[in-house]
């Protein structure tokens, strides 16, 4: 196919305004992926700042003992005014709400799919772009709009309701701007839905000829399962938030007991999306881990089909367990059903963890930042996963519901799982995306700080939870002080770690060494493209000659896949005709 641009997708245009225009109105999945990447990283830091403020507030049992001046400044920022009765508690509520809203809707839901998924899904399939490139750009515009509305809502005082927006507080409170925050989430939801549609169709229709479903990399399976959930679950949060706004503005009364409605109905609606949403968060991370372990252990993934089918099974079962978020609001009969189904969803998840560990057995394990994060994922996600069953068990959940145990559980799976996978993936694919290598020593130091800091912060919270510390409380009894202080200290270690990761990446872009085409020795299609890839990804449509993890059969013994040559160009020309 002639007429392809053989320049890197990052190459600037003739004039600076043409360059800006080419990014603002691009339909290139790589550029869109990069723009998402910068935004989700910015959102992560914003959400992280709120987290640090939350942990700072919890340094001391009561507000008056926390650093006075900081409280005053933060208080003014969030429209705190003791004269008007808006106290430190209200400000604290806003901070954890904003931490949740920003982290969930602006960071973690789009994180891996919109950035790395957009970038690598088409390349891994041998395609030139996603199925609907213009829809992809529209998704990006929606994300930006949602982000602007969220920031506007933040400046209007945010919300105090928690990111879960439970009624009746969310429908009756006048503090902050619930409507703005909810509208932001609504718009962001549409961005997510359209990306999901795009990915499903891409996987069905744009695979290179000869690539069957079981020849795809597991990252693609994970993106596909995630996209299915995005398409089916996100509309439900859309209607939920719409009903919430109608309730606020038009007082329709469906969640208001005074008008005959039912506030628990909101909880059912909300969690019907938000439980599958947590699988939107983790499935891409699991897809990443499959890639990281296979490549950095240079070994065929153990149980490829089991992992592939488990991804689909997790997506399917995820729709059946939402009730476990409202065990304290439901009938006993419903509770029993949801508890049993929740135990079921742990099975495919565990299968994957066993398979990854089995992949590492007798493998040639490289020690680098991506692999360290993959191993950190295995350790920390497993802790998160194992602390799920105590919450799924009805008897223990009655005590643990709404305590710090829950907070620790979901941070272990979301941060110890998804975020660690995301950062590992960033390091893994950084040389491919930018053609530059990062400094491994400093990155590993940052990794150590982040992983240790994370465990210091959140492991203590399991103990806080079992001892009865409720979540979303700004003050606590003095007996909890030591544990809270340890947890806050851990948050500072995490911050230090990320404050090293960021300059490592920036330095790599500015002054890093040039990266090779295949620095890690992977066998999937992205490692056959240039680093960074050309605009149309491949000069000729790639020909599939081996499976994604065929390290044992494709690469002869003692031969380094890093030096593995591109497929025979004569073969490619013969297949496609001489273009």
């Amino acid at each position: 196919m002639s007429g392809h641009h053989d320049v890197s997708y990052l190459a600037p245009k003739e004039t600076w305004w043409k360059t800006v225009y080419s990014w603002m109105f691009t339909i290139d999945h790589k550029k869109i992926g990069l723009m998402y990447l910068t935004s989700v990283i910015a959102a992560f830091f914003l959400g992280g700042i709120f987290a640090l403020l939350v942990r700072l507030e919890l340094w001391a049992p009561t507000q008056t003992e926390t650093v006075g001046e900081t409280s005053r400044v933060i208080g003014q920022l969030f429209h705190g005014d003791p004269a008007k009765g808006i106290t430190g508690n209200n400000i604290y509520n806003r901070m954890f709400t904003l931490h949740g809203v920003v982290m969930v809707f602006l960071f973690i839901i789009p994180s891996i799919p919109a950035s790395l998924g957009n970038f690598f899904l088409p390349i891994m399939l041998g395609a030139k772009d996603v199925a609907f490139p213009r829809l992809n750009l529209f998704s990006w515009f929606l994300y930006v709009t949602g982000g602007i509305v969220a920031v506007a809502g933040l400046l209007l005082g945010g919300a105090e309701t928690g990111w879960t927006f439970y009624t009746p507080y969310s429908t009756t409170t006048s503090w902050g701007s619930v409507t703005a925050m909810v509208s932001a989430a609504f718009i962001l939801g549409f961005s997510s839905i359209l990306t999901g549609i795009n990915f499903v169709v891409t996987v069905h229709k744009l695979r290179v000829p000869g690539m069957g479903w079981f020849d795809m990399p597991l990252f693609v399976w994970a993106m596909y399962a995630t996209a299915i959930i995005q398409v089916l679950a996100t509309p439900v949060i859309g209607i939920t938030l719409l009903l919430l706004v109608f309730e606020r503005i038009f007082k329709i009364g469906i969640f208001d007991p005074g008008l005959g409605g039912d506030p628990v109905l909101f909880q059912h609606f909300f969690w019907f999306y938000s439980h599958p949403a947590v699988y939107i968060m983790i499935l891409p991370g699991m897809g990443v881990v499959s890639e990281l372990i296979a490549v950095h252990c240079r070994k065929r993934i153990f149980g490829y089909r089991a992992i592939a089918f488990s991804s689909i099974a997790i997506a399917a079962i995820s729709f059946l367990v939402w009730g476990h978020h409202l065990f304290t609001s439901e009938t006993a009969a419903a509770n029993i059903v949801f508890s049993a189904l929740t135990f079921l969803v742990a099975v495919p998840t565990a299968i994957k963890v066993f398979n990854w560990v089995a992949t590492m057995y007798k493998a040639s394990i490289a020690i680098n930042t991506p692999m360290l994060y993959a191993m950190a994922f295995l350790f920390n996600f497993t802790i998160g996963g194992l602390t799920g069953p105590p919450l799924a068990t009805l008897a223990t959940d009655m005590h643990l519901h709404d305590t710090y145990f829950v907070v620790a559980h979901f941070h272990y799976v979301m941060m110890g799982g998804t975020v660690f996978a995301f950062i590992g993936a960033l390091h893994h694919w950084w040389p491919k995306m930018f053609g530059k290598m990062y400094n491994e020593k400093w990155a590993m130091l940052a990794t150590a700080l982040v992983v240790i800091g994370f465990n210091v912060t959140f492991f203590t919270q399991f103990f806080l939870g079992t001892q009865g510390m409720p979540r979303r409380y700004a003050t606590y009894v003095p007996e909890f002080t030591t544990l809270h202080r340890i947890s806050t200290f851990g948050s500072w270690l995490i911050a230090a770690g990320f404050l090293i990761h960021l300059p490592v990446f920036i330095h790599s872009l500015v002054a890093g060494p040039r990266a090779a085409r295949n620095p890690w020795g992977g066998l999937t299609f992205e490692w056959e493209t240039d680093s960074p890839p050309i605009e149309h990804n491949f000069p000729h449509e790639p020909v599939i000659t081996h499976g994604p993890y065929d390290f044992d059969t494709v690469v002869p013994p003692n031969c380094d896949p890093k030096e593995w040559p591109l497929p025979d160009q004569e073969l490619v020309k013969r297949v496609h005709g001489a273009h």
Partner: protein
Amino acid sequence: MTTANPRAAAIDMDLPPHARHVPQSHWRNHHDEAEAAKLGMWLFLATEVLLFAGFFCAYAGLRLLHEGNWIAASHYYLDWRIGAFNTCVLLLSSFTVVLAIRGAQTNRQGMILLNLFITEICAATFLVLKLWLEYWPKWQKGELVGAFFSYGNPQGTHDHLFLSVYWIATATHGFHVLVGMFVIAWAMWKAWKGHYGPKHYTSLENVGLYWHLVDVIWIFLFPLLYLA
């Protein structure tokens, strides 16, 4: 925004537009592009079904809480004959949109335009009847949602809940009908320019699919609201 499509160079400009459609450059052939577009539309329709599912679940939950009141309110506030007529109007419009697609398949450009026009008229009729015969009188009499309900002669204690579900479900559906009118108008414009023919009518088919969904949602709303 789009880079030059190398396949565009080789088309015969004497053919009508529908016979010289060039697929976007990342597609291997026209068939793949058309199939993908339809799959994308079906997935979008699934999301719309799930969106409206929220209304149906709210209906179910609230009706279970206030059963007797609910059924009586349906008879008291809604005239099933208007609903039935509107149902027939939408069913006719679904038929005509299919005829328009048939026109594209058989290369009868006039058939495409005429049937799309009738579809548009049906959609407008639906909205006008809804606004004029249902919404406006209700607004005047105060038969409104939730806390705004001010009708002087309610027949039960929770009439406002039924009306809440009625208003928001039919208004959201009506919004989708309005969007459908814009989309059908767009299809009419493309048909006028000769973009639809036996070899290429993908976007017309997708418009038709969307319109059928709007119709199907009404088919469920009508008996639940009017024939309770």
